[in-house]
C-alpha cells in the first residue's frame, strides 16, 4: 500500500533523509519513531505530496506521489502535527467541507459526516466552533477529517503530541480502531507510545532507517549485537586473512582518518558473541600491529533506550 524506495531529501545542503526504503502492506499500522529532526515529518510530507524528494520514489497504492500527485493524494488522509482547522467553522461544517474537498459526492456527505462524528466521539461538540474546542477534541477533529473519505492510507504526524494522559489513551484507541480498514503510518518520538498501537516500527535516526520490524525483534537484535572497533598497523587484505577463521563476520575496513596510503587501518566488526580475546590474539599472532581494540556500545541501543524513556525531547 505504501512503498518507499531509496528516498533522499536535502534541505539546501542539509540531508534530512538518506536512502530510506520500506513497504507497508494493506491494513497495517506502522509507527515511524525517531528523535527530533530524525526525518519523520519529512517522510510524511513527501508521502502526502507537500514535498518532492531529492531522489528516490514514494508510491501510495501504486500511484507515485511525484508523478501522479493528485491521484496519490486522493488515496490518503493526512493529519499534520498541528491539525488544519478553520477556527470560525463548526465541527460539522468543517467535516462537510473536508469531505467534499476529498471528492465525496454531495449525496453521501451527510452520511459520512454523521459517521465520522460518531466514530471520533465528537457528537457533543458537533455544532461548536473549532476555535473554541479543547486540544483533545481538536485532535479528534483532525483525525475525523483524515478518515472521513475512507482513504486506503492514513498518515498521522505526532497525533498524540501535547495531549494529556487521558486524551492520549482516547486517541490511541481511536487509531487502533482504524486497523484493517485503513493502512496507517504514524510518527512519534516516544517508542512505548508506538509499540502499544503498531505491529511494526520503523526506527529513524538522522535521516536514515536504523532498524525496522516488530519491537521485540528490533530489541533482541540490538541487544545481542556487539561492535568491535580496531586500529591496526597493516593492510586490509592481511587483516581479512588473519580473521578468516572467525568465519562469516560483518566487517568494515577503511584507511585510518580516511587517508589513502595510510599504513593504519580501522576496522569495525559486528557480531553476536564476545570475540574480543580471539580477535586480539589472532591479530598479534598474525603479525599485525594491534594499536587499539575496544567494544562500542551500539548507537542504536542508546537510541532505543532514549526513545523508550521518552527522551526524544520535543517532537520533530
Amino acid at each position, binding site marked *: 500500500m505504501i512503498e518507499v524506495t531509496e528516498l533522499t531529501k536535502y*534541505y539546501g545542503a542539509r540531508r534530512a533523509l538518506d536512502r530510506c526504503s520500506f513497504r507497508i502492506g494493506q491494513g497495517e499500522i506502522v509507527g515511524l519513531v525517531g528523535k527530533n529532526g530524525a526525518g519523520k515529518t519529512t517522510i510524511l510530507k513527501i508521502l*502526502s*505530496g*507537500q*514535498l*518532492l524528494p531529492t531522489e528516490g520514489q514514494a508510491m501510495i497504492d501504486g500511484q507515485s506521489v511525484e508523478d501522479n*500527485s*493528485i*491521484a496519490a*493524494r*486522493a488515496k*490518503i488522509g*493526512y493529519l*499534520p502535527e*498541528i491539525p*488544519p*482547522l*478553520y*477556527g*470560525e*467553522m463548526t465541527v460539522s461544517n468543517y467535516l462537510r*467541507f*473536508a469531505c*467534499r*474537498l*476529498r*471528492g465525496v459526492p454531495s449525496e453521501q456527505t451527510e452520511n459520512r459526516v454523521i459517521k465520522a462524528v460518531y466514530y471520533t466521539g465528537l457528537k457533543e461538540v458537533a455544532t461548536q466552533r473549532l476555535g473554541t474546542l479543547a486540544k483533545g477534541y481538536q485532535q479528534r477533529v483532525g483525525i475525523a*477529517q483524515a478518515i472521513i473519505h475512507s482513504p486506503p492510507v492514513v498518515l498521522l504526524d505526532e497525533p498524540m503530541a501535547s495531549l494529556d494522559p487521558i486524551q492520549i489513551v482516547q486517541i490511541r484507541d481511536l487509531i487502533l480502531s482504524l486497523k484493517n480498514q485503513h493502512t496507517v503510518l504514524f510518527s512519534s518520538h516516544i517508542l512505548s507510545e508506538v509499540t502499544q498501537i503498531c505491529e511494526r516500527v520503523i526506527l529513524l535516526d538522522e535521516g536514515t532507517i536504523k532498524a525496522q520490524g516488530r519491537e521485540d525483534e528490533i530489541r533482541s537484535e540490538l541487544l545481542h549485537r556487539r561492535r568491535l572497533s580496531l586500529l591496526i598497523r597493516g593492510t586490509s587484505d592481511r587483516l581479512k586473512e588473519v580473521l578468516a577463521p572467525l568465519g562469516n563476520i560483518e566487517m568494515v575496513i577503511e584507511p585510518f582518518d580516511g587517508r589513502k596510503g595510510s599504513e593504519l587501518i580501522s576496522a569495525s566488526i559486528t557480531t553476536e558473541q564476545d570475540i574480543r580475546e580471539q580477535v586480539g590474539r589472532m591479530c598479534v599472532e598474525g603479525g599485525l600491529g594491534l594499536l587499539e581494540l575496544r567494544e562500542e556500545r551500539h548507537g542504536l541501543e542508546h537510541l532505543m533506550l532514549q526513545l523508550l524513556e521518552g527522551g526524544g525531547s520535543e517532537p520533530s
Partner: protein
Amino acid sequence: MSKILLIARREFGAYFATFSGYLILAAYLLISGLLFNIYALGREAKFSQDVLADYFYYSSGMVMVAAVILAMRLIAEERQTHTLVLLQTAPVTEREVVWGKFLSALAFFGVLLLVSLYLPALVFINGKISVLQIMTGYLGLLLLGSACIAIALLASSWSQSQLMAGTIGALMVVLLLITWMIARITDEPLKGLMYYLALHNLHFRTFSRGTLHFRDVIYYCGVTIFFLECAVRSLESRVWRE
C-alpha cells in the same frame, strides 16, 4: 469547477464569520460616503455626469485599497494558521485553490460595490443621469478590483504573514499605477508599453465617463489572469522549493 466553488464558498463564508468582513464593508461605505460628499458633490454646481465621473474616480482609489485588504489574507492567513496543508494534501490542484480563493474575494468585493450603489443613486434626486453610465462605471470598478485582487493574491502566495502580503501587494499595485509616469521619461517602444500597462490612467478613465472600450476590458481581464496564473505557479513551486 465544483472544487473551485467549494473553496470559494468556504472562503466567502469566512469573511462574514468574523468581524473582518463587516469591518471592511463598514469602512468602505463610510469613506466612500465621505469622498462622495466632499469631492464628488462638492460645493460648486456640477453636471450630474461630472458628479458621477468624480465619484467613480475617487472610488477607484478606495477599490484598490479594499481589494488589496481583501486578498492579502487569502493564502498568507492559511499559512499562518497552518490550514493550507488541508488544501495541499487534498486531491485539489493549485489552480483550483487560487481560482476558488479569487472568486471568494471577488464575490465579497461585488457585495461591497452593491451596497455602495445607493451613493450614485442619490444623484437621481437632484439630477439626471444615465443608468448606463452607472453600470459602466461599476463594471470598471469591478474589473479594476479584480486585477488588484489578483495582484494581492500573488503577493499572498509569496508571504508568510498577511501584513507582508498586504505590503507587497500594495507596492505592486502602486508600481503598476505609476508606469504611466515612467512612460513620460521613457523612449519608444517602451513608452507605449508603459502607458498601456498603467493600471488606472489609460484604462479606467473611460469607464468613469460611461464609455466602454473592449480593449480596456481585455486589459483588466488579462492582468487578472496573468497574476492569478503567477500565483498558481508560485503555489506549485512550493513542493520543489523546500
